[in-house]
C-alpha cells in the first residue's frame, strides 16, 4: 500500500470539504473494495476520507411509499432491519446473500453503488425497483445513476447520501455465484407491481441492464417457462475466466424463471 493521509469527519459538510480540497482524495466506506485495490497498489489515493462517522449517511427508515437507506448502512444491517424485511423483503435477502459475514458487516450500500461493479447485486435491485439515489447535491433515478462498467453519474467529490427504495412486496432476486469471489456470475431481480413487471440483470459483464423483452412478455401473460423463447441481446454478455457469454446468457433466463417461482409472486 502506498502512504496516504486519513481523516474521519463527523459531518457531511466536512467530508465534502475534505474531498473538494484534494483531487486525489477518495471517500472510504466499508473498504471491502477500496482497501484490497490499494493493497494491490492499483490505487493510490493521497487521502482517505472515512465516512464511518458521518451522521447524515446513516439510518434505515420507512419513508413515504417505501424506505430510505443511508449510504453507510452495511449489507448486514439492511439484511436484518425489520422495516426492510417488511417493505422490501427481496432486498433484505439480497443484502444477506452478499459476500460472507465479514464483507456484509463492513461493506455498505453506498460503497457498492458508487463502485458499480458489473457483478454486484444491489444495482440489479435498484434498477428493477426504480429506486432513487440521493447525493449531496441531487437525486438521480437508478437508470441515470449506473452509466457503465464501474462507472456512475457521480461527479468527482460527490457522495451518495441515501437510497430511496419503493416498497416491493412482490419481488425476488436469484443469483448464481462466481465460484471464487461469490459475486454474481449472473443475478436477476424481478419486480411485479400494478404497472407490470420489471426485470434487471447483473453479472452479464457489460453492466446492469433491464431485460425489457421479458418484461413485455410477462406483462402479456407469459410465465417463467415461456422465457426461453424471449429475445435476449447477446451483446449484453461477455465471457471471462469464469464463464462464457453464452453460459451467462443462459443463466440469466434461468435466474429470471427461478425468481418468478419465488413465493413472493404467489399472491
Amino acid at each position: 500500500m502506498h502512504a496516504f493521509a486519513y481523516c474521519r469527519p463527523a459531518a457531511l459538510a466536512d467530508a465534502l470539504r475534505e474531498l473538494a480540497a484534494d483531487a486525489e482524495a477518495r471517500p472510504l466506506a466499508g473498504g471491502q473494495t477500496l482497501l484490497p485495490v490499494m493493497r494491490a497498489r492499483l490505487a493510490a489515493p493521497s487521502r482517505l476520507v472515512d465516512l464511518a462517522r458521518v451522521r447524515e449517511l446513516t439510518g434505515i427508515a420507512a419513508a413515504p411509499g417505501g424506505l430510505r437507506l443511508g449510504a453507510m448502512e452495511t449489507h448486514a444491517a439492511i439484511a436484518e432491519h425489520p422495516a426492510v424485511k417488511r417493505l422490501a423483503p427481496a432486498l433484505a435477502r439480497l443484502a444477506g446473500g452478499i459476500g460472507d459475514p465479514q464483507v456484509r458487516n463492513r461493506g455498505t450500500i453506498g460503497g457498492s453503488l458508487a463502485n458499480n461493479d458489473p457483478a454486484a447485486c444491489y444495482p440489479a435491485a435498484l434498477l428493477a425497483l426504480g429506486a432513487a439515489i440521493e447525493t449531496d447535491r441531487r437525486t438521480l433515478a437508478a437508470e441515470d445513476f449506473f452509466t457503465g462498467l464501474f462507472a456512475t453519474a457521480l461527479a468527482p467529490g460527490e457522495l451518495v447520501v441515501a437510497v430511496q427504495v419503493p416498497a416491493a412486496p412482490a419481488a425476488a432476486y436469484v443469483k448464481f455465484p462466481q465460484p471464487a469471489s461469490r459475486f454474481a456470475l449472473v443475478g436477476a431481480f424481478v419486480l411485479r407491481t400494478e404497472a407490470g413487471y420489471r426485470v434487471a440483470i447483473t453479472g452479464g459483464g457489460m453492466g446492469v441492464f433491464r431485460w425489457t423483452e421479458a418484461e413485455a412478455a410477462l406483462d402479456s401473460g407469459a410465465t417463467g417457462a415461456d422465457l426461453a423463447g424471449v429475445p435476449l441481446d447477446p451483446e449484453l454478455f461477455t465471457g471471462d475466466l469464469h464463464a462464457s457469454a453464452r453460459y451467462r446468457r443462459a443463466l440469466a433466463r434461468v435466474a429470471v424463471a427461478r425468481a418468478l417461482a419465488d413465493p413472493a409472486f404467489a399472491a
Partner: protein
Amino acid sequence: MNAPPAPPLRKFGTAVPRLEDRRFLMGAGNYVDDQLFPGQTWAAFVRSPHGHAAIRSIDTRAARAAPGVIAVLTGADFASLPPMPCGWMIHSRDGEPMRVGERRVVATQRVRYVGEPVAVVIAESRDAARDAADLVEVDWDELPAVADVAAAAADGAPELHANAPGNLAFDWELGDSAAVEAAMARSAHCVTLTLRNNRLVPNAIEPRAINARWDPVEEKLDIRMTHQNPIGMRMFYAAVYGLAAEHRLRIVSPDVGGGFGSKAHNYPEEVAVAFAAKLVGRPVKWTAERTEAFLTDAHGRDHLSTATLALDPDGRFLALRVDTLAAMGAYLSSTGSLIPTYMYATMLSGQYAIPAIHCRTRAIYTNTAPVDAYRGAGRPEAAYLVERMVGLAARRLAIDEAEIRRRNLIRHFPYRTPVEWVYDSGNYEAGLDQALALADWAGFPARKAEAAARGRLRGIGMSAYVEACGIGPSAILARLGAGAGMWDSAEVRVHPAGTVEVLSGAHSHGQGHATAIAQLVADRFGIPMEQVSVIQGDTDRIQAGTGTYGSRASVGMSATARACDRIIEKAKRIAGHLLAVPAETVDFADGLFASAATNATLSFGELAFAAHAASGFPTDEIEPGLVAQSFFDPPNFTFPSGVHVAEIEIDPETGQTEVVGFAAADDFGVLANPMIVEGQVMGGVAQGLGQALLETCVYDPETAQLMTASFMDYAMPRADSFPELRLGFGCTPSPSNPLGMKGCGEAGAIGAPAAVINAVCHALDIDHIDMPATAERVWEILEARRREQG
C-alpha cells in the same frame, strides 16, 4: 518406597484434544512475521511481469535514491551463489541425465515465469522497500511464451532452456512395455482416455516468510523461516550455498501455518534474503504477499495423460499403459523431478493385481511457476488416473463400479507390483465393504429416483487408492536418485524430576505433532502427557531430522519410540541395582519398575531422579543420566489405502454440481490420535473436492500471465462446499513401521477427486469430464444433449 501411583490411562490411540490448539485459538501462535530483530530491515522483490523475457538492462538508480533504501541488489550481486539445485536425479530412457535448466537465485539474463525475481530492495520499512521496488526499471525484451504443457511439448514451441531442446527435461519410463503390448494384444477389451490433472495452487494460510540476520554474539547466521524441514534447509544453505557452515547456521521454524508440501522446498527468495542479510549486515525480513504466494509458491499437479487399460472378458485387468506429459514449470524445483516419476508411476497399480504396467513420463518446461510436491505429490495424479480408468471400464463393460474393483483387488501381502514397490499390508476388500456400507451404496437407486422427482441428476462414484508414505529406506531411494537420506530422528531427554523433553526431527505445520508425540511418550513411560514437552523446528536444539512432508511423521514417531525404549533399557539396568535384583528380571509397565523377585517398585520419576543422583548404581558401568537419540531408517514405505465414495447432484438447468454425500473408509494402520486423523482426512477431502469441482490455476496460453492470482479468481472450497463426511477406519498395521502406523495426511486429496468425477460421469452418463467439473462444463454437456434431442 511410596505406594505405586494409579496406572495412567493410555493416551496413544485415543482422541486427546490437541495441546497446541488453545494457543492457536487464543491468538498466541508465533509465526515468522510476528517477530522482529533489533535493527530490522525489510526486503521487497522486483519480479518479472512477463512469462518469458530477456533482461536488456536494469536501472536501479531511482530505487537506490528512494527514502529508506539500504540496498538494491540485482542478479549480479548474487553471482557468487550456485544455481538452485533439484535434489532428485532422473535419467531418461536413453540413460541421459535429466536436463536441468539453470535457475539463478535472482535472474541475470532471462526470466521464464511471471513473478521470477530480478532484483531485491532492502529498506528501513516494508512500504519503503515496496515503493522503491516500483522504481527499479527493467528494460525487457519480451520473448514468445508457452504455458500449456501440450503446447510446450509440441514442435516449434518457444524453448525455455538451450540445454533442453523441445522443452524436455527428461523422457523417463517405468515398467515392462513389451509385457503390456503382449497383454493388450490378447485382451478382450481396451479402454482409452486422455485426461488432465489440473494445476493447483497450494494456498497455505500463512504465506512464506523469512527473517535472517548475522548474530554477532553466537557468530551465526540466524534465520527464522516458515518451513516444513528446517534441518534440511540448514544443510542446503551450508552445503550448497555456503551461506555459513552448518555449525554457524541456525534455522528456526516457529509455528508454521500450513504448507501442504509447498514449504518443504528450497526457494530463491529465501536464499536471496539470507544472503542479503550478510551483505547489508542488518536483519532482513520478507513475508510473501498473497499475490506473491500465487505467483511463486511451487504449484501442484498439471499432467496431461493418455492411458489404456486392457481387460479380459470378465473385467479382470490385464495391463495398463500410461503416457504422461508432466509440466515442470520454468525450472526443476527441489523435488520437481521426483513427483511425476517415482511418486507417480510407482502408484499406478492402485489396489489391483495388474500383471503388466508401463508408464512413460515426459517432463516439460513451461513458462509458469515451478511444479513440485503438493499434498499427495504424484499419488493423487496416479490414483485419479487409475480410478478414472476403472470407472470408465465399469461403464463400458456394464459392470457395477464396486464389483469390477472387487474382481481385481490385491488379496495377499506383501505384494510386489510391476512398478517397483512392494505393498506392505492391507485388507482392500474390507475397505471396499466398509465404504459401501458407509455410503449406503445399495440404497442409491432410491435416492436417484427421489432426486429425479425434484428434477435433479444424481450420481454416485467411487475411488480406491493406495498411497506410499514414510518414504524410505535411504539406500533404495539413493539408487532411485535421491540426494539425501530419508530416515528421521528424535532425541528423548528425561529430566531429574521425571519430566521429559522430546527433540523431534519431524516438524508440525499444522498436524499436531506436539500432541501425538506426547501421547506416545507418555504411554511409553507411564507418565501423564503434561510431563512431556515436544520441541520442534529449531536447529540449535534439534541436531538431526528430515521434517514433515509425504505423511512421514510416523517415521519420526518411530525414532521417538525407539529412543524411549533405549531409555527404558538403561533405566531397567539402573533399577536392577536400586532394587537389588538382576536387571533381566526388572519389568517396566504403567510407569513402574518392578521385579517379580521382590514386592518393591520404583516409579518412573524416582528412577529418573536416581539416574541423575548417580549414587545407587556403579557409574563406571552405567553412565548417569537418561538421554537417548534414535535414527530410524524405515525398511520400506508404508502403504495406506482407502475407498472413497462421492454422491453428487446436478442442477440440469445450470450445471451446478453439489456434493450431497461423501464417505471415506481409510486404512492408515495404527492411529496415534483418531481425532487428528479425522481432521487430516477432512482437510484432504476438502482439497480433493476442491480440485474436482472448483480449483484450477489458469495461465493465459499466449502470454503466460497468471489469470488466477487471487482468491477472487481462484476458487477455494469452503465449509458449505461439501456435506458432513462419513468416515471409517480399518487397521492393518504396517510391518515396516515399529508402531504399525502408515500415515494419513494426504489420503483425502488422493482419494476424493476420482470419486467425485466418477460420480459426475455417472450422473451425466458420460465417459469423462475434466477437472474441475465446473457448472459451465457440465452445462455444456447437457446443453449439447438437449440440442441433439431437439
